[in-house]
């Protein structure tokens, strides 16, 4: 009897020496492309764990490609993370349809919910259920190298319409300067042109309707028109030589090295053109400018609409309310202002843009704030299969291998295969 008592005491001591029933929240993220990204997460986790000693955060990173290929299996196993990174859009909808996500509407404090930009919350809502919280946005704009456009005698600020842009491209080319740098090997940078043109021509509502199969779906007249406009650009041979053997990060370096006047890219290019350039300093802040994507005359899209990404976190089905609690803390105003001040991304919590230091990022944030709609990158919006077909079609339009009709048809075929 005495022996049992000893064991019981021992067991009690062992149990007590652990933090009382510490709960672990497993988070799976993609590898941030800058060191500051990791630093930000580490600090945010430390802060949360200090405030909530009963919850432990286990934060893991995977590189982009492995993340995408491992996630489906992982989500359907018992080893699924409680929280994982998302690009929202079609893939998120597939995950929600498969029933591997948790509706966190009841877990999140409504007051916290109000701090987010409504578009961000919308991106993580599917069929009226909230499955996660947004963290940041990306906006694609047309960056230019002031030194080169000055040399070519082009004033980028005067470019308003697509025709203006085509004229500018011609002038720059005649001046012996490569008009546009693009990472054609990655394909999706070329899709930015096709997608943005579709956004201008069909409008965000038109794109949503086409994805649902209305008006001949993605092979409809608006998409053919977008392809035709893109082909007009491609026919000018505006891209740097060998653009199909240039991936996106090298394209950033080329642009930073002054090897082309324009690049159509998300706001991350401000940092990427520096990091990936030969000198490591890239184009100086004064010489780097941007304009919103030109307007296509007669298009149905609002000229102020933006195109880009909304990224955030999804919660998987067996997670506890602690997951939402962590997300709330990760995206509180304080953290969002900090990440904004590190120029990591465009924050999605209202007021956090006060922290942004870089003038260009600030101006892009204003663009986003003023946009009536924010169209998600088409390859994200349409899911893995159609998105990849869209990227392929854009790349083959750029190389002149297919006609705009064939491009639109190719995407629609993939859409019907869904």
């Amino acid at each position: 009897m005495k022996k049992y008592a000893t064991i019981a005491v021992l067991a009690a001591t062992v149990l007590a020496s652990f933090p009382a029933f510490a709960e672990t929240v497993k988070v799976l993220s993609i590898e941030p492309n800058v060191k500051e990204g990791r630093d930000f997460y580490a600090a945010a986790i430390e802060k949360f764990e200090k405030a909530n000693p009963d919850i432990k955060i286990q934060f893991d990173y995977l590189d982009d490609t492995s993340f995408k290929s491992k996630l489906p299996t992982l989500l359907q196993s018992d080893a699924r993370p409680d929280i994982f990174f998302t690009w929202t859009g079609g893939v998120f909808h597939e995950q929600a349809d498969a029933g591997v996500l948790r509706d966190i509407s009841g877990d999140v404090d409504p007051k916290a919910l109000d701090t987010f930009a409504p578009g961000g919350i919308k991106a993580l809502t599917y069929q009226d259920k909230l499955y996660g919280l947004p963290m940041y946005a990306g906006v694609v704009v047309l960056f230019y190298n002031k030194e080169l456009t000055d040399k070519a005698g082009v004033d980028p600020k005067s470019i308003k319409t697509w025709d203006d842009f085509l004229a500018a491209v011609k002038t720059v080319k005649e001046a012996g300067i490569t008009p546009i740098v693009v990472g054609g090997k990655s394909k999706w940078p070329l899709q930015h042109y096709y997608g943005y043109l579709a956004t201008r021509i069909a409008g965000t509502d038109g794109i949503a309707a086409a994805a649902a199969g209305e008006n001949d779906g993605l092979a409809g007249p608006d998409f053919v028109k977008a392809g035709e406009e893109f082909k007009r650009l491609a026919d000018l041979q505006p891209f740097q030589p060998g653009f199909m053997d240039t991936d996106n990060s090298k394209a950033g370096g080329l642009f930073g090295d002054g090897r082309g006047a324009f690049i159509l890219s998300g706001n991350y290019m401000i940092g990427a053109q520096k990091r990936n350039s030969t000198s490591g300093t890239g184009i100086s802040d004064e010489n780097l400018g941007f304009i919103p994507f030109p307007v296509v005359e007669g298009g149905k899209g609002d000229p102020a609409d933006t195109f880009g990404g909304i990224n955030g976190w999804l919660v998987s089905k067996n997670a506890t309310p602690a997951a939402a609690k962590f997300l709330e803390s990760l995206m509180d105003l304080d953290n969002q202002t900090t990440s904004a001040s590190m120029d990591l991304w465009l924050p999605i919590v209202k007021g956090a843009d006060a922290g942004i230091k870089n003038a260009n990022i600030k101006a892009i944030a204003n663009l986003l704030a003023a946009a009536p709609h924010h169209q998600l990158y088409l390859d994200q919006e349409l899911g893995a299969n159609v998105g990849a077909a869209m990227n392929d079609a854009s790349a083959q339009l750029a190389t002149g291998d297919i006609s705009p009709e064939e491009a639109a048809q190719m995407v629609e075929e993939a859409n019907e295969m869904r």
Partner: protein
Amino acid sequence: MTLTTQARPPAARRRPSGFARMRTDGSLTALILFLPPAVLLFTLFVIWPIFSAMDLSFYKWNGYGDVTNFVGLRNYEILVKNSIFHQSLFNSLKLLLASIFLQIPLALVLALLLYRKTSANTAFRLIFFAPYILAEIATGLIWSFIFDGDYGISAMVANKLGTEPFYILADKQWAFWTIIIVVVWKYFGYHMMIFIAALQAVPSDLVEAAEIDGASSLKTIWYVKLPMIMHAVKLSVLFAITGALQVFDIIIPLTNGGPSNSTHSIVSFLYTFGLARMNVGFGAAVGVVLFALCVGTAFTYKRMAIDKGGQL
């Protein structure tokens, strides 16, 4: 069942049948003990996945949820009509031919030059074998740097020559030839080593006899050495064929299948259109075709070359 038992006993009494012998000398116990784990593992990791891939290829599945959407032969129909798949098949065929008609002759010539044991030969063998040791991904990255017309070696060369830089990997006509060259460069050393080992096993008295009879060195090679190492050449060709059908990790870093999906092999096609796009059923269909091709060529080759010409 009863018929066989009635027919068997007399024979068994005269000379113990295989089964009876196995029972007495203990090999049956060994079989019962050691066979099941091997069969189980083989079934679990080889047979079962093959059949489950065949099963999956009749479904449309995006990787989430249960596999319920039976589509019959639709995945195969799409595959047969897909022009990129035709291109990938053609590319794999080009790789296969290059492996047999470029890589193996090259390996053979080098093996004949280097098979004698001298220190210089050892050094050269090491140099030629080194590419084989490199990881495929690293090989692809190294060569993509070499061919990079902006920052790579080819940019430096073009700069020194004062010509326009060339972007061979961005050129639809040349990109796949580049891949073929890299594949040949990477694997010829492996075949060379097989040939060297075989050449060293050729009895020297045969070679000497030929020399005494006044055979030129070319004739010695043609009439003595080559016939003596034919088994190794046949084995090499088999490896070259199956290897060429499976090329994947060199293509991804070099061209990623581009430009315009013109440089896919069957496997990189499978990965890009099946896995990366989450068309799991479609990918399984490609996998089944690839499996059939591998098994088909391997067996045909075995019948044609190996069975007729004696042992391997």
